[in-house]
């Protein structure tokens, strides 16, 4: 069964350092999402791609966060510099249809010390 892949699964970093997360969506899924989930909360959308184009990045803190999906397949989310408040689970999801069901990866648990 096809799955969304994410790496790393866990990342511990010190504040002011740079971190990067990678996501490989299900093959053929044009829509890719990055979410941040704080413990005890629901996921909140950071950025949405349709192929290689950003559809929605209104909630992305652009002073420190960046995301790209250069060839419209896999994607990278970067934080530079990391802050203590960035500690959270970062989830990637993909979808084959606009506004349809989303398939989530296992997530990357980020801890900023």
């Amino acid at each position, binding site marked *: 069964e096809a799955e969304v892949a994410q790496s790393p699964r866990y990342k511990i970093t010190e504040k002011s350092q740079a971190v990067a997360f990678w996501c490989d969506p299900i093959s053929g899924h044009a829509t890719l999402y990055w979410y941040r989930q704080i413990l005890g909360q629901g996921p*909140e959308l950071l950025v949405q791609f349709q192929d290689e184009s950003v559809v929605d990045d209104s909630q992305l803190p652009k002073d420190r966060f960046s995301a790209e999906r250069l060839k419209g397949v896999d994607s990278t989310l970067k934080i530079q510099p990391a802050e203590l408040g960035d500690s959270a689970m970062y989830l990637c999801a993909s979808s084959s249809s606009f506004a349809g069901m*989303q398939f*989530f990866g*296992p997530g990357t648990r980020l801890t900023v010390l």
Partner: protein
Amino acid sequence: SQQGEEDPQALSIQEGENATMNCSYKTSINNLQWYRQNSGRGLVHLILIRSNEREKHSGRLRVTLDTSKKSSSLLITASRAADTASYFCATDGVAGSQGNLIFGKGTKLSVKP
């Protein structure tokens, strides 16, 4: 911001009992989805109900939608220990929507064997 609001925040039941979780939302929607998340993992899609549907079934799951009250409920019948997880509702808003989902804070379900 989170549109969906699940109720209760936490629910503890015995194996074999039914579990009911409720979700309220604020704006008009195209569809409402329910997801499950096991501790420390990614989300798994359970069921999607469209705004013109009132009830939907999938195995032991039954979802209802009342658009006049802007609310939905998820019923899990004959619960099992393996149903222990957090359950989230997610809405896809109509106005200005880019097809992304807005998640609630979730209901944490504990099923005791």
